[in-house]
Each structure stands twice: as C-alpha cells, then as structure tokens.
C-alpha cells in the first residue's frame, strides 16, 4: 500500500504491507534502526518514537496509520553528526544506560517530557519513563540524566519549551 511518511522532517514514499508496524517500517524500509523491538506488544517501550509531538509505541501502530503524521526518531535528535543534544549528552554524563537497547526509546520519552516541563520532579521523570523498561540500570542514572538535562536546559539562553 502506497504510504507517505514524514520522518525526521524528510518525506518518504513507500509501498508497505498494511500489516507492517511502524517500527518494522522504520527499521527495514528506512533503515532507521535506532528504534528497537523488545516485545512487539506495547509493554517495553524500546520502540518509542515521537509521533505528532508525543512519544508512542511504534510497535502498536501500523506504518499505514502514520501517514500524515510527523515522526521523530532517535536519528532525528542529534543536532549534527558527532554532536549530541543536551539530553543525549546528559545520558552520557551520568551513564544513564548500560547495553543501550532501551536508550533511544528512553531518550525520546524524556525528550517529550522536557519539552513540556523543564522543572520536572523525580516523580514527573519516573512517570514519563514508566512505560520504558530498562533491565540494566535500575533507572537511577536515567532519572539523574533527565534531571541534569533539565537543569542544563533551564540554564540555556533559550526560551522555555524549545527542545534541546
């Protein structure tokens, strides 16, 4: 089925089977492999991408459903090759990961939180990432990373709400 997908600001025209999930389409057809499949039934959050501004499970959405939406994947977050966003850098600073498998989804979930809330409490952060399972870290350094990023973003010479 002919489908137009707007991913990271780029329009792609694809022929996809209706049964293909968005995550499979991103990974296989667009070779954007940063969204990972961990459970394919909407629990683990490793496939999280941002659709029309909110983090969603790309395994619980078919690619054909995403036509007309704006999709941001982890590949669309870094400002330039070799340059990290504030949030990505904060994850490196606190080592908010181990194996890195849940990391892209976690960062996108946090990305959406910080867009709306630059002064998140620990509870806000926990709630925002509660749909993303990390088996390695026990979440502590992830929460710390998001909190650090928020701190750094508050200190930026930029108006609130502008994503990092």
């Amino acid at each position, binding site marked *: 089925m002919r489908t137009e997908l707007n991913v990271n600001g780029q329009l792609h025209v694809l022929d996809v*089977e209706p*049964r*293909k999930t968005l995550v499979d389409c991103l*990974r296989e057809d667009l*070779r*954007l*492999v*940063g*969204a*990972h*499949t*961990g*459970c*394919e*039934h909407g*629990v*683990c959050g*490793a496939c999280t991408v941002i659709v029309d501004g909110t983090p969603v499970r790309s395994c619980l959405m078919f690619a054909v459903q995403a036509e007309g939406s704006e999709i941001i*994947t*982890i*590949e669309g*977050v*870094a400002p330039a090759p070799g340059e*990290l966003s504030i949030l*990505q*850098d904060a*994850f*490196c*600073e*606190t*080592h908010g*990961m*181990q*194996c*890195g*498998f*849940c*990391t*892209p989804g976690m*960062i996108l979930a946090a990305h959406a939180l910080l867009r709306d809330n630059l002064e998140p409490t*620990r509870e806000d*952060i*926990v*709630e925002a*990432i*509660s*749909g*993303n*399972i*990390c*088996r*390695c*870290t*026990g*979440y*502590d*350094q*992830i*929460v710390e990373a998001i909190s650090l990023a928020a701190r750094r973003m508050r200190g930026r010479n930029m108006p609130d709400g502008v994503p990092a």
Partner: protein
Amino acid sequence: MSAAKGKFRYISSDRRVLEDRRFVVGKGNFVADIVRPNMKHVAVVFSPHPAARIVNIDASEALKMAGVHYVLTGDELAAATQPMPNGMPTPEVKRYPLAVGQARYVGEWVVAVVADTRALAEDAAEKVKVEYEPLPFVVDGKEAFKKESPPVHPAHGSNILLDKTFVWGDVEGDFAASPRKLSFSQKWGRSSTVPIETFGVIAEWDAWREVLDVWASIQMPKYADQIATAMRLPMNAVRVHQDVDVGGSYGVKRGIKQTVLVCYLSKKLNVPVRLIEDRLDNMRGGDAHGPERNFDVELAFDDNGIIRSMKMDALDNVGAYAGRSPFQLGKPIGAIVGPYKIKSVQYRAMAVTSNKTVQEAVRAFGQSPTNYTIERALDEVAWALNLDRLEVRRRNFIQPHEFPYLIPSGTSYDSGNYPGLVDKVVKQVDLDALYAERDRLRAEGLLAGVGIASCLEPSGGNSAFEPLLNRQNKTTTWMDSCRIAVDALGTVTATMHTTSAGQGHETLVATVVGEALEIDPEKIRISRAHTLDVMPSNSPVGSRMAIMLGGAAFHAANKLKRKMMTIAAHDLGVPLEDLVWDEGTMTSKKNPEQKRTWNEVVLIAHRHFYRMPEDMEPGLTAQHVMQVPNGGKLPTDDDRIQMYPCFSFEFHVVLMSIDPDIGKPVFRRYMIGHDCGTVINPKIVHGMTIGGIAHGIGAALLEEFAYDDEGQLLTQSFMDYLLPSAHEVPKIETVHQVTPSPLTVFGQKGSGESGYLGAPAVISSAVNDALHPLGIKMNSLPLKITKLGDAIAEARAKAGKEMKQ
C-alpha cells in the same frame, strides 16, 4: 574509593563510558540492525504440549506458499549435526535445536520455517501440521525427583541429572555438639534475566571460502567452539563477529540452539539466514529461564547465635534438558558459607529434568538463590534466640584480620572488611531510627519490616564447578586476553576478544591501558576482534572482566611499555633500569637531558630498524593471556576446590511496609553498602549495583515463569511476566568501601552481579520481619501481592478466631 584517589591517574575517577556515545544516538550495532544480502528469515513452530510424541509433521501446505523456502524438522537437523553440549555425564539426555521424536515442554521448537520475511515465515509456520500423541509429564521439581515420576528422557532412566552430597568438615560432630538446631525450607521461584533484546543470530555460509560467518547477540564462553563442534566444521571455518552489541544478557544470551539452527539452514540453503526471537519465542522456547530451586536447611548453633554447621539440600528444577544449568548448583559451593565462619557444611546438590523450559546461566550463576537461603538462616537463628538479626551476623562474620580465609569447601576468600562496611551503613542509614520508623508504621496499623542481608559476590569467574560436579571434565583453564598495538603514527589500539552486553568493557580496557601507559583513555581505540583474529576469551561471565580483561590489558600494556623502554634505552645507550616513564616520554634518571619521546620510539619501531635492539621484532605490539588468579587446579579427592578468586561484599538494609488489607509491599528506604575493591569506573559500578538491585526486586516481588498443573507456561508475554518499571524501583542510597584484592592488578574485584546477590534476600527478610507480629513467614519467591494478601488475611482470620475463643 577515596582510599584510591591520588594513587591512580584514570582508574577510580568519574569518567564517561566510551560506549555510551553510540547508544544515545541509536547507533548501536545490535544483531537485528544487521542486514545481509538476500537474507532469509526463520519462524518456529512450537509444542503446545508439555510432553508429546511427534507422530507426524505435514509441511506440504507451508511449502506451497510463495516466498517460503524451507521447512526443517528435528529429524533432519539431528542427522546432520552433533547434539548440543551436555555439561553433566548424562549422554542420554540429548538436546538438539528442534525436538527429535518427542517434545518435552510447552514452547519447545519443533519445526523451523524459512521465508523471505519473518511475517511470511509466521504465516507458513501456522500451516505446518504437527500431529502429537500426548505423553505423561511432570512439572514440579520435587515430583520429578521421585522414582515413579514420568521420565523426561526415558533413555536416561530417571529425571535425576545430579544428586551429589558433599561433606566438608565434621558436620555430624558439630551438629551433635551444638545445643541448638533448627530447620526450614524455602523456594526460589523460576525467573530469569529477560533482557529487553531477545536473542538473535544471523549465519552466512560462504561455500567458496568455506567460512561460516555468525553475528549474534551472544554472551557465551566457547561459542565458536560449540558452533564448530555442532556443525562438524573445523573451528577455523567459523567466524563469529564480536563487534555486535548485545542488548542485555546478564548471563542468558547463550543461544546455541538458535545458532546451530540458522547455521545449518544457511549451509543447506546457501543464503544468509536470520532468526531473531520474538518475545513469545524467547519466553517459552528461548531456553533462557533461570534457577527454580527448593531448599531444605538444617542449622546447628549455640545460645550466642554462633552457627557451627549447616546442612543444605538444594534441588534445582532445570527443565527439559541439561545444558549448563546443573552447574548453577556448583558455583555457590565457592561461597557456601557466605561471609560467615560456619565450620562445617553438608551440601546435597540435586538437579532434575522436568517438562518445563530449559534453564540458562543467570546472573550470579545460582549464587543469589543460595544467598537468599543463607541470609534466611541467619534471620532464623536470630528469631530462635530472640537476638537482633544484625548482631547475629556480626557474631558470625569472618573478621578483617582473618583473610585470606579458607572456607570448608576449599575456597580461599581474598580480602574483606565486613564489619567495617556494616558499621558505615548502620551509621548512614541510622538503623535505630529505621527501627523506630518501622515501629511507628506498625502503630499506624501497617505491617512494617526491616530487612537485612549481607552477601558475597564471588568474582573472576572460572569453571571450577565443572570438574567438581563432573569428574570427567578436567577444564581448569579459563583465560582472557588483550592485544595492544601502537601504529606507525603512534596511536594506540587495544583489541578484546569477546562481546559486550553493556558492561563497558571498552571503557575498562581503555582506562586500564591509559593508566598503564599514562595516556588519555579517550585517545585509545578499542577493537573487538572476530574469532578468526583470535586470542582466547571466556566471555564476560562470573563477574570476571574487571579482573580478567582488566588484568590482561594491564599486563599487555606493561609488556608494550617495556618494549618501548627497551628500544629507548638501546637507542640512548643507557641501561633499561635508568629510564623512567612519564606520560610516554622515557627519560634517563641519571641524565634527564637524555630522553626519547613516544613518537621517537614509534618511529624507531615502525621505520628505523637499524636503531632497534638486536633480536627484537619490529613494530609495537604486545599481548597477554591471563589465567584466573589462584585458579587452575583440579578439585581434591575430598571435593574441595578453589572456586572464584575474589569476593566482593554487599550489605543491604531496607524498610518496607505492607498495607495488611492489600498485601502490596512498598519500599520506604533502601540502602546498600558495597565493596568491590578498587573501582575502575564508578559510573559503571554504580549502574551495575542499582541495576542488580532492580533485577533482584523483580525476582523477589514480581517475576515468575508460572506454570499451571497441566504444564502450560502462563507467562509468555510482558503482560504477565512483570519486569520492574521506574515506578517499582525506589531511590537507592549507596555507601562505598574499598577493600582491595591482593590478587588483582589494581585491587579490583568483580561487580557485574552486585545488587542482585542480596536484594531478594533483603526483601524476603523485610517481608518476614513485617509478618512477624502475625506469626507467619513467607517461604517462597516471588512474594506476589495476592500471595501476601491471602496469607495475611488468613493469619488475621485465625488470630481473630483465637481471640474470640
């Protein structure tokens, strides 16, 4: 860590983890990210029966479908490959990637279908008709142990894979001499590490070069050997690519059956073949469940709470095939008395087959269940004597001056300061105040309990349990390696020879090499060799990489340094001993004007052969293969063995409350004291520890591969197998202590299993303390809400009745 400050340049300092950069941008190299030209995909047909004879397989419908290339049965595969390795001397317990003749558990893979896409393969798998004749089955471990239980492998004659009793010391004498005795039983439920990335593997046979390339999400010693053996190929025809990032493992990523399956298919079909388990494949048939263990314990102690002797029976229900799982009863022998001075031990290790999914090595390789039981023993003694639980531990602790300490089973503990760390935690947590808080919560009508657990993490893994449990096995070599090269332009590349699943090995090697050579670790390139460019490794198991890979890197760096200094000394015409190394510049002590810079030595080694010492090879490379410190010996005739060399220590204190009407346990406070010797990277160790606790919280409260009486696995998805989310892991406070190991290059010990070793024990301890006023105890994990709620309700109803009487 403060003790180490100043001593090291890079070690122990709070440095970033080199691997992280690629992960935060989604540029990891996971197996599912890899695409090979013309790659085909596999889906499997699984058994819905716990035990059934395979009467007939009809694949005709599936084979007619467009895009479907092959349907493979167990019979074909078994004829063409060797059975998978069997750790125990139980030759009749044969295991192949697909069931042969009989299926032995729900979820066992029976048929594999190859198609152009995974979706097509699944379509076709549905069309394969397998006719079964159900057979008698057994799911419970204690039942399986009985003679009359239906044997999972009739040719083996029974379900018993292992039943060996060890006696270390005068157990009967100590029991007879002890004024007090008690016994208890408890069970560690079947859970596992369940990484978020399932297992996946791609195999590509090149018939012209006769090389089998394998990319896999693997964490397993001797993987290439096992592939070559199973495939009947020379080992130098197997090239495992170790630069594949592994999306979590914690022991279980050992998909040898998956690998043999795709290797065979690739060779047979002459195309690259990929199998990425989906979550359902993984949960029911990925053969990655963890220990499920019944304990029966008897203790002999005195009125002061000093434990003299312990008898422990441990029965592991390993599932349908043997694999390595019986050995998970063997590793805890190296820390069978925990941090305590128990003089004699009788240990009966039993492993049985049952009609459940196969077990795999899980974080700590059986030690965490055993710690859970040892800690329960300490609590039981305290309760029996009405003594403080921590006081009983203090009285039994091995003291700092007693190291190295030889435990009855023959292992020497390297170093430790258990009371020191306990004191620090007690102070930091303010234990008296914590008890006061517990009592305040109780006064509010809640059930509240303080949990205490002090546990060891044996580290620097070797396989000493193999020759101990299976005397035919004489494997005592358990090395790891590193190679370092300085190229013609002077930059440094270090090579490691294993995969990594988030443990930060690249950072480890860079930090250690940087430390030794006094150069910025970020300037060191780390490369992961494939197995045809190989040095031996036994992979990151048993909390060994800081010790083993760190050690290998250190020694290789020192060899390199020595070579560079030898060249410099020769070029300067001064004795080697006269040179000092300062950030890569080699300067004469006698005459500081005389020196050679790093780049000068690089130039000599790579281009100016005439300036080289005689008989020295040109270029700048060095390598080191490291054997486990103090390992390498066979067990004695009386079954004593040096298991792992280094012993990290952790002390957990928690406060939990339970609303008695609901039964849901809630963390109020969680503190861990942790001592893994010299810390190489604090961020990594912190993450391992907190992550281990989170995993332990899962095992203690949420996670279980639950079977019903009919042998059906009821928890095949993440909707029923519950992993802790950010909500379920409380804020955890940490206290550090550094007691260096005398056996390692920097005093480091392992920490890859930390947290997980004590979390289940401490949670159980807290819950039982909370239930104490009701006069009940919970004897199994996980402590699910309904189990607690129903037990509390029953106890209250009983108490209510008694009150009325």
